[in-house]
């Protein structure tokens, strides 16, 4: 109990409890303990200790005003350690950015209270110069509604890795934005399983009633086992790992292939900024790097962006991929079919 980290965590929790108690005045021990993940006994021990703290000569007016009864605890607004503390730069940033991100969610209704809170935060912390922009794909509102109401959708979905459009019925479960894109985890009739979809790849959607869908119990998220985006299979399009709030790290699916590239060192950052790649290794003035690829189209995009200088080393059958894609695109320009 004397380790610094442990004392620091206890101090942080004690100050959070006191700050919260100061807002509510008095609260049942059970409630406070549950809220702050303590047993009632541990909560009482902690608060009785704090109640004895104070400034010499320890007359009652110099002690912390914390009252612990058999059933409840209370403190007084203005008690030295119960007033809100200044935020660190990270904390101030986290609050201002979180509030702005939620306000940027397209169709966020009833955000008056949040806007008002943000104004007050800005006045105290100066966060006005933070801006958060989120994508607003056409079908986002409908998908969001389906997640909220438990409704089902019939969608036509553009798969970027196969470059084809498929029809499927889905039961949306969870909606989230990551890496600048909106994703929905949904039970998919075509796959007979949970799948992850990018909302901006939904071409059309309408509300339907699905019969005989298997409901995953308790809102678990098997799609997260692979973290794979339906029809994408690329590391670039999978959301990054994020831990406690429920974002899963990308794990390549069984059908993903490893592709080894040789690129100019000046372009290595572009590849390294993709998740799920190996380290970039210098090789004769160039850099070799490995990426996981689930679909040809995704690799074509990457190679074309990297430019003429990037080469596929392995597997050999992908070596002509960029030239083939460039040929396909060039055909549009030579035929001039877009211009009238």
């Amino acid at each position, binding site marked *: 109990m004397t380790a610094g980290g442990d004392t620091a965590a206890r101090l942080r929790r004690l100050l959070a409890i006191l*700050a*919260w108690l100061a807002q509510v005045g008095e609260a049942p021990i059970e409630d406070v303990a549950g809220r702050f993940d303590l047993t009632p006994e541990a909560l009482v021990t902690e608060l009785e*200790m704090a109640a004895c703290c104070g400034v010499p000569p320890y007359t009652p007016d110099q002690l912390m005003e914390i009252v612990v009864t058999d059933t409840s605890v209370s403190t007084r607004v203005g008690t030295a350690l119960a007033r809100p503390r*200044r935020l660190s730069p990270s904390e101030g940033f986290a609050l201002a950015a*979180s509030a702005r991100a939620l306000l940027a969610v397209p169709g966020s209704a009833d955000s008056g209270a949040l806007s008002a809170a943000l104004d007050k935060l800005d006045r105290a912390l*100066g966060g006005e110069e933070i801006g958060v922009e989120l994508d607003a794909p056409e079908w986002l509102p409908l998908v969001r509604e389906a997640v909220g109401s438990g409704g089902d959708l019939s969608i036509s979905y553009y798969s970027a890795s196969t470059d084809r459009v498929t029809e499927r019925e889905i039961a949306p479960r969870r909606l989230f934005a990551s890496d600048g894109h909106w994703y929905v985890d949904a039970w998919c009739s075509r796959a007979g399983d949970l799948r992850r979809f990018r909302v*901006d790849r939904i071409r059309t959607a309408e509300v339907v009633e699905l019969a005989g869908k298997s409901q995953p119990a308790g809102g678990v998220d098997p799609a997260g086992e692979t973290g794979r985006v339906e029809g994408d299979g690329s590391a670039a399009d999978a959301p990054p790992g994020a831990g406690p709030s429920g974002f899963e790290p990308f794990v390549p699916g069984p059908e993903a292939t490893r592709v080894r590239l040789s690129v100019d060192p000046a372009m290595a950052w572009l590849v390294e900024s993709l998740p799920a790649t190996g380290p970039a290794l210098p090789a004769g003035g160039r850099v070799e790097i490995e990426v996981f690829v689930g679909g040809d189209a995704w690799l074509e995009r990457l190679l074309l962006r990297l430019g003429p200088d990037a080469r596929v080393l392995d597997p050999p059958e992908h070596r002509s991929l960029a030239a083939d894609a460039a040929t396909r695109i060039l055909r*549009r320009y030579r035929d001039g079919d877009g211009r009238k």
Partner: protein
Amino acid sequence: MPRLDRLERVTDLLLVLLDTPRPLSLREIADRVPGYPDAHGARRQAFERDKRLLRDEGVPVLVVPIGGEEQLGYRVEPDAYYLPDLGLEPEEQAALNLAVAGVHVGEPIGRDALGKLGAGGESAIRTTTAPLVDLSSVDGLPALPVLFDAIRHRAFVEFDYRGEPRQVDPAGLRFRTGHWYLVGFDRDRDEARTFRVDRVDGMPALDEPGSARVPPGFDIDSTFGRDPWQFGAGEEVEVDVLVDGAEAGRVVAQLGGQAVVERRDEGAVVVRLSVTDVDGLILWVLELLDHAEILGPEPVRAAMVERLVASGARDGSAG
């Protein structure tokens, strides 16, 4: 005498340092805070550990030279410790809790912030069915809160950016398409510039508060530009791009409906873009593979053809 809980000693220390109107020497502190060892060396060591713990928890412990044999005095300035009253209404606090629950910026920073505001506790910030938003986390971008601090305090910053030292008057931060950007005025280049925060090497060095000289009338949003084809400083040219139905929905969601100048069969659209960076435009159009085509003007279309030929395209015009 039973060994005192260190938390009690630290809590007492915090109260004493907040309460004192003048800096206290270590001896005076030990007189007021129970639990410090009597031996001078051990006492100093225990106090330094407690001071470090408080500082790590964000408590601004001041060290001030004082007269007498101990030479150094300590106190905590209440104004630097307490947050000015935000005056949040209960529903505003609740909305803020929801925002922290629904937005991932690198836990547990947001939760700790709520704790300081008096809205802590796990059950207060439980995940809901509301959409979740992941903002590339702060723990992966140590420079981000530092740059935020620089903007708040209008402090001039220096940092290394992709191997080059940069001197910037910071103006704002923007999150777009999965990345955080710093927008500011680059003193060496004498120009407004945008920097991707994940490409800042190491920690930015901040100058004094108020040292930033952002030019009057500096407009963050016009500097940031909307898109990769506006990052350059070239002459502005209007470019028309035809996008197939397969990708039209995504492109229109990105650009907004006002960019569409023509709708064609099977969901295809023509969008008109103001381009100052042709290379940036070409990279963006390449992402769309053969679902898009630069229609004109001719020099921009020719630049795309050149790029495709360089990438190994075989010319099929004869076929």
